[in-house]
């Protein structure tokens, strides 16, 4: 839990910057929609990480450090994806104290695809569907006990999914 405390205080420090982003997405003037409780539960959207072109820059923007490869991060991805617009990818891990899981595609115009927060009590694993512009490495980063672990797999794409 130590790490999540650190993350929370980091979030607080970002509140001033966050206020701008929140105004941008219009959270401040919602008549209906998200209840305040749900909106307040959201952490700041990692804008910079979603602007980074390379996966290394995205990981740095997201976590401020680099991952080490680990065979405890299991990625389930197709060898060949016929349609790059919909590539099903899932990840699971036997690592303890997982706090987040991120998916990145090296060759996409924006490398970071998704970042998931895993609170205590939630099983450290997620399945989703992502877009791939072309054949590329897919990288999964798992944050566990304050450290970063990764798994990488090349997925061959027959038809790109970013209209590229």
């Amino acid at each position, binding site marked *: 839990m130590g790490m999540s405390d650190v993350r929370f205080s980091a979030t607080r420090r970002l509140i001033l910057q966050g206020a701008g982003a929140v105004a941008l997405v219009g959270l401040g003037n919602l008549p209906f*929609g998200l209840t305040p409780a749900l909106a307040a539960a959201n952490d700041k959207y990692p804008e910079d990480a979603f602007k980074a072109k390379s996966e290394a820059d995205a990981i740095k923007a997201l976590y401020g450090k680099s991952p080490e490869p680990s065979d405890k991060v299991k990625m389930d991805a197709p060898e060949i994806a016929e349609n790059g617009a919909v590539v099903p990818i899932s990840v699971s891990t036997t690592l303890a104290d997982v706090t987040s899981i991120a998916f990145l595609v090296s060759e996409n115009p*924006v490398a970071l695809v*998704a970042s998931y927060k895993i609170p205590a009590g939630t099983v450290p694993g997620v399945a*989703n569907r*992502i*877009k791939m512009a072309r054949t590329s490495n897919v990288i999964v980063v798992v944050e566990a006990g304050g450290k970063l672990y990764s798994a990488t797999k090349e997925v061959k794409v027959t038809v790109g999914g970013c209209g590229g």
Partner: protein
Amino acid sequence: MASSIRVRATTSGETTEVQALIQHPMDSGFVKDAKGELIPAHFITQLTFEHDGKKVFAADWGGGVSKDPYVKFSFKGAKKGDELKIGWIDNKGATDTTTAKIQ
């Protein structure tokens, strides 16, 4: 109005498996239309799942998530009949929420 969010949450006793399917274009901003003009970015940025006032899962998404996104995860501590609250917001400020009963 019909919700954009379809959720199935089933518990086996200890863990609850959640699958969500959301209707959303998830335009990345990098794709051109038939006229060769870029389709502006329009994608869900944040998605949260709450059970019993506690966030059990949260996603930060970019335009690289597929159209009509699907996500699956599992969490502990819920029982049959409990409510799961789901909400999303996109980069244009649109939102949607729904509540699902855990089965």
